[in-house]
């Protein structure tokens, strides 16, 4: 095909969008709606996943050291904990720190009625354990990590929220399978709806295709304007869907940031940042929009080319 022929067919494809206003509008509307729904489902899935990760990070494993552990034992335990795999971070809490924390907690209870109940337990009388508060990386491996920590020298026992960790791991798996499964189902439904919309568009122009065939147009010559038209419709829909989803997402982020206090404000740090997700969202929308529109319309005319 010559360059002028290619240019002509591309121009034809683009001007067909304006010529077939109603069907173009319907196709753009359906494709935009499908991309918005799929995009929202994907963002929700990403956020729920991140929230579950956040919850997991809040649950610390506490490695209690023996009551008679001296500074050397504490130091060697610290080194040993650093060498255990699956450890994200560890913080040392001395016996004194533990006592102060407990005092602080008790003094806040029942209007300070028991504020002095721990007086006299300082120094050698302190019955509390020095400990390391450890955050694990992968909650699904928490049992193995706890077993390794328990074997370390100077360690008396390890307290770990193993049941909760199991629940969170299951929850994350459910979010992954359910969330992305939902995205896949929505994407499949979108494909069917868009395919049908394009088929209707093409069916309305079957006479045109038929005429092209009888004046000797090759299948490629007939298909190219439809491919251009479909791709352009896909890209327009992708841009619109990106605008809608981005606007809504930024709106939610602002609402959460303005919440001040309460549970809503605590969500702010667990929400996936817009800056880290917009390029992915735009890329996926543009690629899927162009593919669905272009390939969808080129495939839909195949039936009408058999003349």
């Amino acid at each position, binding site marked *: *095909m010559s360059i002028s022929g290619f240019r002509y067919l591309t121009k034809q494809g683009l001007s067909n969008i304006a010529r077939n206003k109603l069907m173009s509008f319907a196709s753009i509307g359906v494709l935009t709606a499908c991309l918005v729904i799929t995009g929202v489902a994907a963002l929700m899935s990403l956020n729920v996943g991140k929230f579950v990760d956040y919850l997991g990070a809040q649950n610390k494993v506490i490695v209690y050291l023996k009551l008679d552990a001296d500074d050397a034992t504490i130091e060697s335990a610290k080194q040993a904990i650093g060498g255990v795999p699956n450890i994200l971070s560890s913080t040392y809490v001395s016996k004194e720190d533990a006592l102060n924390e407990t005092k602080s907690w008790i003094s806040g209870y029942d209007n300070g009625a028991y504020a002095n109940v721990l007086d006299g337990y300082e120094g050698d009388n302190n019955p509390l354990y020095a400990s390391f508060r450890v955050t694990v990386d992968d909650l699904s491996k928490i049992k193995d990590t706890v077993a390794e920590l328990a074997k370390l020298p100077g360690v008396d026992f390890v307290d770990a929220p193993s049941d909760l960790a199991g629940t969170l791991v299951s929850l994350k798996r459910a979010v992954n399978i359910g969330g992305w499964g939902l995205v896949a189902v929505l994407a499949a439904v979108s494909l069917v709806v868009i395919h049908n919309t394009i088929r209707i568009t093409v069916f309305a122009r079957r006479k045109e295709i038929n005429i092209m065939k009888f004046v000797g147009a090759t299948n490629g010559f007939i298909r190219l304007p439809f491919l251009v038209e479909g791709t352009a419709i896909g890209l327009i829909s992708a841009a619109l869907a990106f605008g809608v989803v981005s606007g809504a997402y930024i709106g939610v982020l602002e609402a959460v940031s303005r919440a001040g206090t309460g549970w809503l404000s605590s969500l702010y740090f667990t929400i996936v940042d817009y800056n880290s997700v917009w390029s992915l969202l735009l890329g996926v929308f543009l690629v899927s929009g162009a593919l669905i529109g272009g390939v969808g319309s080129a495939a839909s005319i195949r039936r009408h080319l058999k003349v």
Partner: protein
Amino acid sequence: MIEFKGVKKEYPGGNVALDDFNLRIDRGEFVFVLGHSGAGKSTFLKLILHEEMATEGKIVVNGYDFTRIKNRQIPYMRRSLGVVFQDFRLIPTMTAYENVAFAMRVTNVPERRIRSRVPYVLNLVGLQDRARSYPAEMSGGEQQRIALARALVHSPPIIIADEPTGNIDPELSVEIMELLCAISKVGTTVVVVTHEQELAAQFHQRTVYIDKGRVVSDSCPVPSRPTFLAHGTGEASR
């Protein structure tokens, strides 16, 4: 040019439209194919256009043997035909100019050549002033002439006209037939499929009668020069 040898066409359901159909049309001939409704004229056209395939027999059009033709060759075979359909088959979203130019565009003709050739052909059919009009804005006769211009524009070796005068007034019918006759004089094969015996009789050309799917009569042209040829028709008559 066009050869049908022992052609049979049976549609699903058992309706036999053509049976043992034999016809040969050579280069430069002007042939009327006459027949009543249901005689097999439409099937004859569909087979030439490869819109339908023969159940039996051999069809050769412009050197393309339909028993051996590959799918990718069909567009090129069709480009060697200029077809004027009874229902015009103009693309409604294109102007008259674009409809005519389209037949050249599919053959990758350079834009400069299209810009000079299309106005010439529109002028030939007397519609140079309607170049920017859409089919819906034109009368049946005008649409018919645009369809004729489209068939002529790339100078195909064969022109096939299906009831070319079916939708136009008698005066214009004669004009269109004159144009087709003039085209055949320069070596283009013209096949006019019609049911109008009176029209065919006016032009003293080879006339093939079809009935019940067979050629029942094939008369030679009367050796006389129709008066209309004296007028001349521009490029096609040179």
